[in-house]
């Protein structure tokens, strides 16, 4: 089983206060701690479990700065075999489609059976990159996967749906699975393992190295424009709409129209 596992280096925003910078489109990250995206951590573990259950070769793939090498080395300490880190400031990284194109560019041309990634990133929460990646690679995908069974030439994926439902699907390989947290219990990467993983290959690549046209994944190609980031205001008032159902619907529609929400 030849696998890729795509991981992202994200800030932990659960402890530190989030402050938007004066430019209005970026966040002050000086007080954040950074680590592997939570769901991606489960994807790494799942890839290692699949490898341990049979045979496998795992390539870690990430787009990020040099500081994220520690996260990549941890994944390699857990059992991943090699890594590619794409570092290029020309990527419109706020757009999951552009990110997917870069990841696909790094994978294309190489043999693979399975690509695993987290179902969602803890920083922007788009939940789109994995699915877009499958589209770019032209392969099957299943999202929000809570259980994986490897079959002959296929995988059975148990997907978490809304309302607590579970959907079981079979996918022909190659395929992309986006992994939901809780699918396993990620292991610890001991420091001696991290040191031993220094011997494994970590290739740092630019867009040119992986054969991706910078224009095609840059701000001009992206259809997403980041206009403003702001902390949602805490509203203290709530309006209860009274009346019969039809009357309520009319009032609600008029509020939505007035507020410019539809």
């Amino acid at each position, binding site marked *: 089983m030849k696998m890729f596992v795509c991981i992202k280096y994200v800030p*932990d925003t659960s*402890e*530190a206060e989030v402050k938007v910078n004066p430019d209005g489109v970026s966040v002050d990250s*000086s*007080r*954040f*701690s*950074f*680590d592997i995206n939570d769901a991606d951590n489960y994807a790494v573990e799942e890839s290692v479990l699949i490898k341990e259950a049979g045979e496998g070769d795992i390539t870690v793939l990430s787009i990020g700065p040099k500081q994220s090498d*520690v996260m990549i080395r*941890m994944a390699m*300490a*857990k059992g991943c075999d090699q890594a590619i880190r794409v570092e290029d400031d020309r990527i419109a990284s706020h757009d999951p489609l552009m990110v997917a194109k870069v990841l696909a560019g790094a994978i294309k041309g190489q043999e693979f059976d399975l690509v695993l990634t987290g179902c969602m990133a803890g920083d922007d929460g788009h939940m789109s990159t994995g699915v877009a990646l499958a589209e770019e690679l032209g392969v099957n995908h299943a999202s929000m996967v809570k259980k994986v069974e490897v079959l002959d030439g296929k995988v059975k994926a148990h997907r978490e749906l809304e309302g607590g439902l579970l959907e079981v699907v079979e996918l022909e390989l190659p395929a992309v699975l986006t992994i939901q947290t809780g699918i396993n*219990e*990620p*292991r*610890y*990467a*001991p*420091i*001696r*393992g991290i*040191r031993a993983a220094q011997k494994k290959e970590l290739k740092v690549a630019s867009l040119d190295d992986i054969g991706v046209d910078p224009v095609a994944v840059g701000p001009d190609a992206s259809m997403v424009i980041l206009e403003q980031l702001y902390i949602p205001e805490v509203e203290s008032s709530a309006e209860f709409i009274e009346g019969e159902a039809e009357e309520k619907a009319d009032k609600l529609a008029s509020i939505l129209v007035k507020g410019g929400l539809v």
Partner: protein
Amino acid sequence: MSTEIQTFTEKYDLLGCIQCGRCTGGCPVTVRADLNVRRFVYDAYYEEKLDELARLAEIWDCTACHTCAVRCPKGLKPLEVLLGLRTMIIESGKVEPTVRDALQSVLLEGNPWEKSRAARSDWMEGLDVKIAEPDVPVENLIFVCCTIAYDPRVRVIARNAVSLLNKAGVDYAFLDDSETCCGSEVFTLGEEGLFEMLVEDNTELLNEYSAKRIVCLSPHCFTTYKTKYPDLKAEVIHYTQLLDEMLKDGKISWKGELNRRIVYHDPCYLGKQGDIYEEPRDLLRSIPGVELVEFDRCRERSLCCEGGGGKMWVESESKKERLAETRIKDAKALEADIVAVACPFCVLTLEDALKGLGYEEEMRVAEITELLGEFAEA
């Protein structure tokens, strides 16, 4: 016989054990867990048993209080056999998520509490704190501790220390956000590789400062720096030693009377492991109006609160009474108003026990710096 078993046997001097049983006879944990350290010392000699021993849940019950080491007539440290078995589990990566996250946080952020390094000095807010600079000589370089720096309950230890030092005009300096975990709990959780890295990095960092002494606010950092950092240039002391000096030099004056009955709980890392028994008692006795009483189990026989040995991140399976609860009940029987301690972990475990028992109205747990902060001029 393989090299590995020779290493394990030699590393922990297993052949030195005479199976006298003084270790198990003194182990405070045996009343609530199945831990039998003497059996582990015996069985660990057999290479083929090591994996099986490492998988036993009770290796995580040890609080590293060192009672077994204090009592061993052969000078062995039976508890370290358990830590060696923990290392085997740690190296496999299959550890409790709480342990995993604490250790990973030490590696990434320099503290086991999953807090950002950038927030390490937040406790200093509003205080006039002198910050150390490399190569600028300083008499007392204060080492705060991760728990004191981040836990809102025990930050008062560092804050009051600053006030007392400023008032007394003592030559001191604190580290900024560069202060990194001493590794006390990393060592006892069995993450040997990470501990070795911390020893190397912290030795380099602390030796950059021309400090005469490193003054630790936590007994865990104190014992770790004193016993496991061979290349530190500065002498390592606990803050109670510094405050006791200040007291004897007449640098602490009082602004009121406490008029309370206090029982002092010897922290394992300060007493049994650090051999510091008198200074905390002298400080408490010096507060006007204090009546100091003693637990039956005090000094080197002090009952462990179960806060050490990485137990902050490993919950015992035992449902029997926590030792901290036993301790609080003993204090109640002594009709103490205050259980005084000199350790952040003891504050947290004993206070939890006190609240759990519903004694909040009649008793309190206080760190010595808290009492000094309330009754010393600052």
